[in-house]
């Protein structure tokens, strides 16, 4: 491959390569790859203000896996302005006059003539690196390089003495930034891990702000879309299989104790035979990948550019189905975790521990306890790495058989305690890469790709009210925990021998062109990230009610815990994007893990009376969409009682791709080149996208229904075309809330067609909004094609007003049937409001009038189409169309179901959540009736008429428990929880009890 095309690979598309020069560092042996350098002048024209700036790049050849040189590494970048200059001289003589036309003819003609050139950087770009002197044979190229440099220097209007900070400049040379960041070049698209916080954001959110008539930074946005596309495509094209790694994670605040109990429940999870390993063994394992034809496993798609460049053949063009089956890495003991990752907090509480290292005695003791807990399986495991910071210890055990698959093991720590150094709070982290074993003699992989796993063990600020401090601790740790790539591992650590001589080690630390040193890797720059920690986040429910709820044996644990975790500070912080934004956590199914203090004053559940019970010990994770992570379990282990915390464990499966890094690089380069070529060939005619139909009518849109329309969009131009939807105004939404659009951004190759799906689904939340809006729904979507056009797509529909999903107060002010309403404000004056919603009264009256058949009402499932008919009649005001003579027993059931659905759809609960706590105190019917005084008149009427009807049918029924059964169904409906309420919820049993005062 020519130097020029190699260099093109690392240049971003709006930038233009002016000249490329082959040179060397020393005169002797100009051909030795070690010495070879590529010098290139690149120019960038600003699309907006037409200015031009130039830069000199210096690159080194990278020796590829195959031994050949197929890639360039950017080493230095010199902006051309001010002091910058290039001086050349012929070897052995004085400086040569630089005018290319004046280089002596003799030199040009002399074969093998060597010319030296030295570079003087502009202000602020000098450093102590050895003199920037190079040698070259290419006299002509050098002449061009020199004259380009001069031209660009003259074109530059940067102050000659200005020292420009490339990292922060927003004007001059800001176009160079992508080359400094880790997201340029092939490496960025393949081996350099992306920041998980970024990669997990929807692509659209990563683009610049933009709206109708005001495109953002289209060049940069198109680049982001392209990079994303290439990154995903290149990987799927070279994936030859998948492997599944099983992890068991644990977190345990040991409160300074030494191990004194059997930890097997926490470590192994199969104590008391709770986990049936047998069952898992019985699930048939697919035979190893190598015995299966690729075609049988998934769709095989070839390089998308092959259609466009039919003559070129390209390697590695199969694309694997993403959902393809992953095989366990370890087939011998598939039920055991391959990696056991344990985080301990408060390992050592002694004061000395805060000040200086107290040795490894405690770590050793806990590791022994872990191995003991593994029982007979302990022989299969060994310690891979550990990292301790005072009280925090992160230790990883690995199956011996897989130990050699782990490499690049790095550790780091950061204190968050006093002064940010003392380690009473803070975190430790380990990063490692796993290269799945793969032996296929037919198509061996020479440079297998690996997947990185990062684990963080942390301990955040204590106490209820410290939630802000915890959030800031988290943000601080996120910033400060990073792997510098060179931190020497503890010599005692068994890792040292693994690392040595590991030739599979993939170099992942990118080079900054200007400095040449590896950049530190953030903990987020990984394929998968797990945090296990004592977060100290608490539950925002008053202490006494919390304990009462926990104690309440009539309230099943699952719904109780679900209700309580809604008040968990961590959940709230995640929801409010204050901390752990983008992390996932499996729903908690176990009781609070803190605080138990035998001996001290405790409540009936064993929780310390001085500390509010809380889920302090958690496991959270995040991963690259290319690497599937699934959590299988999340539990606490209350039988381990030695500490004031209970240990928590979580099992995970991580699916990783098997691919060849050389193939991945080749794919990425190929895609990038093909894309580039198309762009260069066809700079004109960007007006590429044709939308088949720009007018979309959803016609009548009614409650509970969904509808979909598809738009087909074709790229009729000859160059790739990136698109994105934009809002009308910067801060307005891209589409109205009743509509969803997918995809919102993407890229189309020439002739490619994609389908954009517009869908409408009217659930109760959307209906609640639309009921108060004019019924004519219309919207214009704006599809923006980069650098070209805003396409308008008109969407319309006619919303059918429904009595579902309204406020009670609004329903009582309707003039008649809601469907007849002309405008949403066409209501009766408040003073003329009727007593109770007409619709509820119609339902109750009908049921009262047809009370001969009450079997199954509220209890049996109803016929959906009958419910639909009933709802339509309520909305339109028409009479119910059911014949009186031949009663269908299903009809009363449908009425009852409609009533439940109606109540569920109301924007408020008949008895508001704020009153639920008061229901707990009611001891008899009279007291219960008094509570009704707190309700709005409409709510009282609804309550009375419904309960009167229920009372009637329950009294008459021969079934003694009918009232009980109906109340079980209706209590949560009439006393609905409100997830936004500040008042803690009450148990379903209490609600039922309250309702029973009225109906039994």
């Amino acid at each position, binding site marked *: 491959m020519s130097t020029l095309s190699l260099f093109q690979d690392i240049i971003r598309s709006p930038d233009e390569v002016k000249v490329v020069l082959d040179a060397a560092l020393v005169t002797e042996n100009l051909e030795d790859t070690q010495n070879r350098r590529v010098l290139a002048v690149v120019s960038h024209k600003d699309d907006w*203000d037409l200015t031009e700036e130039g830069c000199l790049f210096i690159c080194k050849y990278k020796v590829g896996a195959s031994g050949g040189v197929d890639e360039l590494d950017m080493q230095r970048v010199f902006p051309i302005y001010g002091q910058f200059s290039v001086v050349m001289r012929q070897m052995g003589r004085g400086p040569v006059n630089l005018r290319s036309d004046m280089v002596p003819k003799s030199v040009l003609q002399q074969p093998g003539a060597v010319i030296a050139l030295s570079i003087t950087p502009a202000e602020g770009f000098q450093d102590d690196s050895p003199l920037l002197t190079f040698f070259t044979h290419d006299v002509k190229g050098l002449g061009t390089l020199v004259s380009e440099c001069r031209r660009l220097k003259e074109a530059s209007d940067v102050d000659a003495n200005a020292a420009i900070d490339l990292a922060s400049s927003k004007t001059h*040379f800001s176009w160079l930034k992508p080359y400094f960041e880790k997201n340029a070049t092939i490496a960025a698209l393949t081996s350099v891990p992306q920041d998980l916080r970024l990669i997990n954001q929807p692509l659209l959110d990563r683009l610049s702000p933009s709206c109708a008539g005001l495109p953002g930074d289209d060049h940069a946005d198109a680049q982001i879309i392209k990079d994303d596309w290439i990154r995903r495509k290149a990987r799927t094209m070279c994936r030859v299989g998948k492997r599944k790694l099983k992890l068991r994670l644990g977190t345990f605040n040991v409160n300074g104790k030494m191990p004194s109990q059997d930890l097997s429940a926490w470590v192994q999870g199969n104590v008391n035979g709770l986990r049936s390993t047998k069952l898992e063994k019985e699930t048939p394992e697919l035979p190893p990948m190598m015995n299966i034809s690729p075609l049988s496993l998934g769709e095989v798609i070839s390089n998308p550019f092959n259609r466009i460049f039919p003559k070129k053949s390209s390697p590695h063009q199969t694309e694997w189905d993403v959902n393809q089956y992953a095989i366990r890495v370890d087939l011998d003991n598939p039920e055991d975790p391959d990696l056991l990752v344990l985080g301990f907090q408060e390992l050592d509480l002694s004061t000395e521990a805060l000040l200086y290292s107290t040795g490894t005695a405690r770590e050793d003791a806990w590791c022994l306890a872990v191995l003991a807990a593994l029982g007979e399986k302990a022989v299969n495991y060994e310690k891979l790495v550990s990292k301790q910071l005072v009280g925090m210890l992160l230790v990883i055990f690995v199956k011996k058989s897989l130990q050699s698959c782990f490499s690049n093991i790095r550790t780091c720590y950061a204190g968050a305690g006093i002064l940010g150094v003392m380690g009473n709070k803070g975190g430790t982290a380990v990063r490692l890469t796993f290269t799945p074993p793969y032996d296929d003699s037919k198509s061996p992989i020479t440079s297998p790709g690996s997947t990185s796993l990062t684990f963080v063990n942390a301990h955040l600020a204590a106490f209820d009210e410290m939630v802000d401090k915890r959030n800031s601790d988290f943000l601080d740790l996120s910033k400060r925990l990073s792997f510098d790539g060179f931190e020497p591992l503890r010599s005692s650590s068994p890792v040292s021998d693994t690392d040595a001589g590991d030739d599979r080690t993939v170099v992942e630390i990118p080079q900054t062109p200007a400095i040449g040193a590896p950049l530190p890797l953030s903990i987020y720059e990984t394929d998968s990230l797990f945090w296990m920690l004592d977060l100290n986040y608490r539950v925002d429910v008053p202490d006494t009610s919390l304990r009462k709820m926990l104690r309440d044996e009539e309230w099943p644990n699952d719904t109780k815990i679900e209700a309580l975790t809604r008040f968990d500070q961590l959940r709230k912080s995640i929801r409010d994007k204050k901390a752990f934004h983008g992390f996932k956590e499996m729903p908690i199914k176990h009781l609070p893990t803190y605080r138990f203090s035998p001996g001290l004053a405790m409540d009936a559940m064993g929780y310390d009376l001085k500390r509010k019970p809380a889920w302090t010990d958690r496991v959270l994770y995040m991963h690259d969409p290319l690497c599937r992570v699934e959590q299988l379990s999340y539990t606490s282990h209350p039988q381990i009682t030695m500490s004031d915390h209970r240990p928590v464990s979580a099992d995970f499966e991580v699916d990783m791709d098997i691919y060849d890094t050389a193939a991945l690089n080749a794919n990425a380069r190929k895609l990038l080149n093909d894309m580039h070529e198309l762009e260069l060939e066809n700079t004109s005619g960007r007006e590429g996208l044709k939308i088949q139909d720009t007018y979309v009518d959803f016609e009548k849109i009614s409650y509970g229904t969904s509808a979909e329309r598809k738009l087909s969009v074709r790229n009729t131009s000859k160059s790739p075309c990136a698109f994105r939807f934009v809002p009308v105004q910067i801060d307005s939404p891209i589409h109205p809330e009743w509509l969803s659009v997918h995809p919102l951004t993407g890229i189309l190759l020439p002739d490619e067609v994609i389908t954009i799906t517009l869908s409408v689904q009217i659930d109760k939340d959307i209906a609640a909004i639309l009921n108060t809006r004019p019924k004519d729904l219309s919207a214009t979507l704006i599809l923006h094609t980069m650098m070209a056009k805003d396409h308008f797509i008109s969407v319309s529909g006619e919303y059918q007003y429904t009595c579902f999903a309204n406020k009670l107060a609004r329903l009582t002010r309707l003039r008649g049937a809601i469907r007849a309403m002309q405008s949403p404000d066409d209501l009766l004056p408040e003073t003329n409001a009727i007593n109770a919603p007409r619709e509820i009264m119609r339902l109750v009256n009908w049921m009262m009038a047809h009370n001969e058949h009450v079997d199954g009402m509220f209890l049996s499932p109803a016929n959906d189409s009958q419910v639909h008919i009933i709802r339509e009649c309520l909305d339109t005001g028409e009479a119910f169309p059911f014949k009186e003579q031949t009663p269908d027993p299903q009809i009363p059931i449908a009425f009852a179901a409609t009533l439940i659905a109606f109540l569920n759809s109301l924007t408020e609960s008949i008895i508001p959540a704020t009153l639920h706590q008061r229901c707990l105190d009611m001891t008899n019917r009279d007291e219960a009736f008094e509570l009704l005084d707190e309700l709005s008149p409409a709510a009282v009427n609804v309550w009375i008429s419904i309960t009167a009807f229920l009372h009637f049918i329950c009294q008459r029924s021969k079934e003694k428990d009918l009232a009980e059964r109906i109340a079980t169904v209706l209590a949560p409906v009439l006393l609905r929880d409100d997830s936004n309420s500040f008042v803690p919820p009450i148990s379903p049993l209490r609600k039922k009890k309250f309702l029973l005062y009225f109906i039994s």
Partner: protein
Amino acid sequence: MSKQYQFKLVLLGESAVGKSSLVLRFVKDQFDDYRESTIGAAFLTQTVTLDDQTTVKFEIWDTAGQERYKSLAPMYYRNANCAVVVYDITQSASLEKARTWIRELQRQADPSIVIALCGNKLDLAARRQVSQEEAKKYADEEGLMWTETSAKTGEGVTEIFTAIAQKLPLTAPSATRAGGARAGPGARAGVDLNKQAASAGQPEACNC
């Protein structure tokens, strides 16, 4: 000293008066007898050289004339330095529409906006419904530039854009250097890019 300016120009006018055709003629010197009605807004750029010293780059937004999209027009004429309001000389109703656009621009657009009124389809003068006198009188009253064009034959097309280019730098807001910075949407205004002429000649002797 050379001067480079960049201006945002928006085309407005009733559907089918020939806005897209005018832009196509100006940017690519082409004409299409069957053009699809614009659904959206197309973005194009074209540079006009006034003399050796001054170039003006137009960032052109060709909008949709259909009534349905009228509410979106303000998004495209906001921050515009100039507007070309087009009517069809064979359709007197289209001049009425043009008047509405001009009133709206005078009320809502940037007060310094330069407005040109353009009577298109001059090649169909035989079917003329709008007299030159009527249009010119209106333009004079409102202080607008005015001309007649034919996107089909090309008559008057370059001239109107050049005339706008000549008028604009005089009225443009005070110059600011952009220096490659995109201060984000909305931050653009006419920009005077005073800078050293980049000599395209033969390299001269110097240690550079």
